[in-house]
């Protein structure tokens, strides 16, 4: 009996460990990495404000530029228009009134000011060829060939939307946002897909906040 048991045990254990070790990951497309996060000031009464104003430009913040040396670039006009019109639609759907449209936006006071900015981060990966084949077995350690045989870079774009009460605070020197949305994954290099991701991301941000933002 012991002999048979010992013979059978290793494959059973190996099979079990193999099955247990499998750890599938669900990421299959770049959209699977898209994330929408919203946060709010729990002390702010969202029932009070009824009007808002939209910006006219959206700054593009990158890791390449130092904002203390020169101001950030702006998003292209078509993307700016898409983002602002989507925010406008969502704010209206939540029951707020856009006073920017009422009189050109210059003189009308609003309860909330919407600000938006885009954040661009470029991640770069290098792939090296190693001479770790047959000869590498004898001549350890094996080193990578330089230069790298492949370089891949991908852009991670995020959109940040803030709602700020107006006037900002008693000192008038700081903006104290009461609601912030971070929409990650708006730039993959495929414009048509990216536009859909932007619209879906903004809609999701307002949708998941409607319990307190909505009128």
């Amino acid at each position, binding site marked *: *009996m012991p002999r048979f048991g010992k013979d059978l045990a290793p494959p*059973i254990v190996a099979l079990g460990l193999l*099955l247990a070790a499998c*750890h599938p990951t*669900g990421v299959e497309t770049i959209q699977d990495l898209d*994330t929408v996060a919203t*946060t709010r000031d729990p002390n702010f009464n969202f029932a009070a404000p009824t009007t808002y104003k939209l910006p006219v430009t959206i700054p593009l913040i990158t890791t390449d530029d130092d904002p203390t040396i020169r101001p950030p670039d702006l998003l292209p006009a078509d993307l700016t228009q898409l983002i602002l019109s989507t925010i406008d639609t969502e704010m209206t759907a939540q029951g707020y009134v856009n006073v920017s449209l009422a009189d050109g936006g210059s003189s009308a006071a609003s309860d909330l000011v919407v600000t938006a900015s885009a954040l661009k981060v470029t991640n770069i990966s290098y792939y090296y060829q190693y001479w770790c084949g047959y000869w590498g077995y004898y001549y350890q350690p094996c080193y990578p060939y330089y230069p790298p045989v492949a370089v891949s870079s991908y852009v991670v774009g995020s959109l940040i939307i803030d709602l700020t009460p107006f006037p900002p605070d008693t000192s008038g020197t700081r903006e104290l946002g009461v609601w912030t949305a971070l929409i990650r994954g708006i730039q993959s290099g495929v414009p048509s897909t990216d536009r859909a991701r932007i619209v879906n991301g903004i809609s999701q941000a307002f949708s998941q906040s409607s319990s307190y933002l909505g009128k």
Partner: protein
Amino acid sequence: MIAMRTHRTPIPFFALAVLLVAPAARADIPPTLVGVSYQFSIPIGNTATFTPPVSWRGVGLDVATFIRKDLAVGLAFGWNVFFDNTTSTINVKNTTITGNQDRALNVWPTLVNARWFPKISSNRDIQPYIGANIGGYIIEQYLAIGLTAVQETHYHFGLAPEIGVFFQNPVGAVFLNARYNMAFASGGVPFQQFLSISLGYAWER
């Protein structure tokens, strides 16, 4: 001289006693069973909330020694993996996050147990039992949203009632059991529960 004889006398007696008793004691050592098993697990409660699907990944190792003909004590180790991929919304304090999530629970039970084997027939080819486990569960909880991941590992005190049956054959025994695992809250990870079904093979060692 008299005193010296008095001191020598117990030594041969002790040696004789050891010689006589030792074989009998060795013969009384109960058989030790070693069992390995494949396990699948059904999540319940908080475990099902975090990772709803049935876990098909699990393995177990059991060691048991009979202290009576119908009673065995032992150790139980295991590894159960719960996993889910979902796109949903979670709330953390005043922050709401929506995105594709990888969720995983790696559970390593480390339990001591007692099992009672009631006599239901003379040949004991089919031998059911009931048991109780107590000990700890090492639970690693993993949550990834987008490119951000959070992982924490805690040791949870736990209990696990168990029922099972051994199907004995000339070379060992196939066993099937169900264990209701309860790992109490620890380190912010809430009470975890799952029912594990084991199919394994045991042999004497």
